[in-house]
């Protein structure tokens, strides 16, 4: 019995170590491909890593670079947004996102004969992205409990100086709660929003129903931002400013 357990344990350890090696190897392979100016190959490797459940900001940064160097700026924007979502202070991801947007705007301007800009993310989403998720979550909890404890203590404390201190604490904690709460709301995508999305194909047609034969009501272009409201089979129901709501094929949208 002991022998059997030992074998099983060894197998488990071996498997986990093999898996870790495999992930690192994939990352290194992607890095080498990037260095050798094979961005498409690098992007493929990094997409595989993401498919294996890796949710690492460095992986997303490199994926964004690989996609941008393959001139798939919509995909690059999604990757950089994911990196920023995990690590808001990542300068490379931020610069990459700006550059990808600039490149798309230029491309659009060239195609349309005028100037074009790419709309930035909504204010709430931007604010939500300013804090890492654990900071927003535990900040909200901490501020809520600090405010609640201060208020609770106020119910029993009679000393005036202590009451003043507790009142100040409650106000400060309430302000922090508001800040973290709004950030969390931005991240948690309240209001029926499934996720913010970016168009990753040249064009994405908005249809009246989740059916490729349904009438088309609008067309999004690569890099345009939209709100994904719900999922309907191979389609997302989406909304954005100034456009009718409708259904867009999921393969045309990258969410973050």
């Amino acid at each position, binding site marked *: 019995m002991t022998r059997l357990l030992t074998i099983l344990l060894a197998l488990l350890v071996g498997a986990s170590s093999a898996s870790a090696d495999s992930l690192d190897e994939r990352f290194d392979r992607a890095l080498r491909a990037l260095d050798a100016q094979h961005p498409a190959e690098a992007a493929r490797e990094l997409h595989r890593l993401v498919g294996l459940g890796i949710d690492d900001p460095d992986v997303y940064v490199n994926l964004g670079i690989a996609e941008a160097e393959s001139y798939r700026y919509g995909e690059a924007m999604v990757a950089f947004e994911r990196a920023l979502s995990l690590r808001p202070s990542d300068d490379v991801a931020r610069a990459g996102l700006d550059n990808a947007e600039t490149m798309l705007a230029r491309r659009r301007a060239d195609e349309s004969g005028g100037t074009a800009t790419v709309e930035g993310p909504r204010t709430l989403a931007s604010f939500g992205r300013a804090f890492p998720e654990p900071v927003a979550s535990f900040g909200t909890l901490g501020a809520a409990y600090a405010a609640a404890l201060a*208020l609770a203590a106020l119910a029993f404390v009679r000393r005036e100086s202590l009451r003043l201190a507790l009142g100040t604490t409650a106000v400060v904690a309430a302000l922090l709660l508001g800040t973290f709460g709004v950030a969390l709301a931005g991240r948690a995508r309240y209001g029926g929003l499934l996720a913010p999305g970016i168009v990753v194909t040249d064009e994405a047609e908005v249809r009246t129903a989740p059916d490729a034969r349904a009438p088309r009501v609008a067309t999004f272009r690569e890099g345009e931002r939209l709100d994904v409201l719900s999922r309907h089979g191979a389609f997302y129901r989406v909304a954005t400013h100034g456009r009718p709501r409708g259904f867009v094929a999921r393969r045309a949208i990258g969410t973050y």
Partner: protein
Amino acid sequence: MHEGSKIVAGRLHRFALAVATLVAAGTIGASASAQGDEVRVVMVASTDSPVAGEEFQVQVEVRQTAGQPGLLQEPSFAPLRITGTTGVRHMQSFQQVFGQAPVIEIRTVVGYTILADQPGVFTIPPAIYRMGRRSISSEPLVLKVGGTAVAPSGAVPSATATTAGNFDNYAFLRATVDRTDPYVGQQVTYTLYLYKRVDGHVDMQRQPSTDDFWVQDLLGPHRQPPPELQVVQGQRFEVHVIRRLALFPTRAGSLEIGSAAIDIDTTSGFAIFGGNRELLTRESPVIRIDARPLPAGAPSGTIVGHVVLDARLDRNSAQTGRALALTVVVRGDGLLRDASITPPIIDGLRFEAPAVQDRVDTPNDLVGGERSFTWQVIPLRAGTFTIPPLGLSVFDPRTARLESMTSQALTFTATGAAVVDDAPVADEPDEPEDEPAEADNIRFGPAARHAEMRRRVAPFHARAWFPFALLGAPLLAVLAWTLRFTRAGLAAMRERLAARPSPKRHRRDAKRALSASDPAAFYAAVAALLHQALGDALGERTIGMTHSTLRELLQLRGDDDLAGRVVDELDAADFARFSSSGASTDEMQRTLDRADALVARISSLPRAEAKP
């Protein structure tokens, strides 16, 4: 029945009155509307006898009431010349009588400053005002110009070989190039102008095709030059530069810059109330370029233009196996993205693939800038190494001479043990799907060299416990304050209960005093018991009342016997409180029994409302 008929008649009367009022209002409205369709177009000159060489004014005025605003078609003044225009459109709204819908009057006045170069009689054709399908014309204007002929003046776009435009009275596109016989790789500056005399939204429908050129846009979003005014064939136009491109021929031969097309939407803003869309479509002419080949012997990657090379090393000494950075910068004008420099092969040195950076500048619409190549140079053995001058072939189109530009030679020293050259074999880079030219001056990266390979985990706020944990905070505060209020409430209730006098409590006190053989306390409790019972029965406090008043109150209740007994008992209690004879336990017990009997009788009295 008679009353009912009157009511019905009254209602009919009022209905008829309302119908009459509506009909009248409709008639007045229709009349106003009929009048509103009138449009008057008048064209007048500031003088009946203008003189050649002297400017005079011609004014076209359109007055329109109601209807949609139209478009004034300017008359042709040729051979007279327009040297200036002024235009104004007033919209005025005024209320009709009887509170009808407001009527809008539109008054458009366009003034032309006209110059005649020669005397004669000239007839200006009518000015036409178009309102959808309707056209309203002014009278033609006959001008008798006196004086003597003067030399004509005024800028008209030249019809040179590098300029092409299809003149139109309202709007046209004109395309120019600064040269038509460039060398391959030499810049040709293409400019597309829009001449227009109408207002409206301009939409680029087709870009000029530039298939055989490498293109650099010279007008960024913030470099749109302001429009200028130009008089062309006697008409004054607003001139907009809508495209300016630096084109570099990629092959020799006859090349073509295709036609551009625009739409000008002149539909009035009032078209939202209905009406036709008015769209002007204009195309630019095709321009042909005859690109000349570079002289025979020009190597691939030859730059057409003027450049200088600068080379530098980041340091003069290095350990073997440690890389130095060799940077060569090509600076000047021309299409520098074509520049390519091959590093020398030097025994004992390994050159990594270069990092290339481009900066494109377009001062005075001349494309230039710099391209830098940075190699990581790794010495594989100790020694002093000299990197020879690195060269680049440059063709000067002005002198038509091919020359070689070189950088200076660089020397550095390597120390340490020899290392093995283990460079990986470089393979071919990916072919980009569709490389945009603008990608050159934007760089992504640097790539992360290491990743922690974090796994995807559910965010904290999405975990099941999070809402409950968050809800705990307000619950905590609510609980604390509830507890506080509950405690305060219980204490207050206890206080109230403790403060409220009760016969039972007084009797209990009396019994306690009896047991303790405390006559003073006993009789005080008995008196309090009786007063409490009296207070409850009479609805007012009896403590402090004189016994005669108390007697009267009880007598008023119709029980003289009770009145006498109560007063006697209270008197006796007062006396006994200060007398030792009252201290007998039996007597106290009897007093308590009597008091109980009296309380029972008092309680049976009808209750009075409590007085404050």
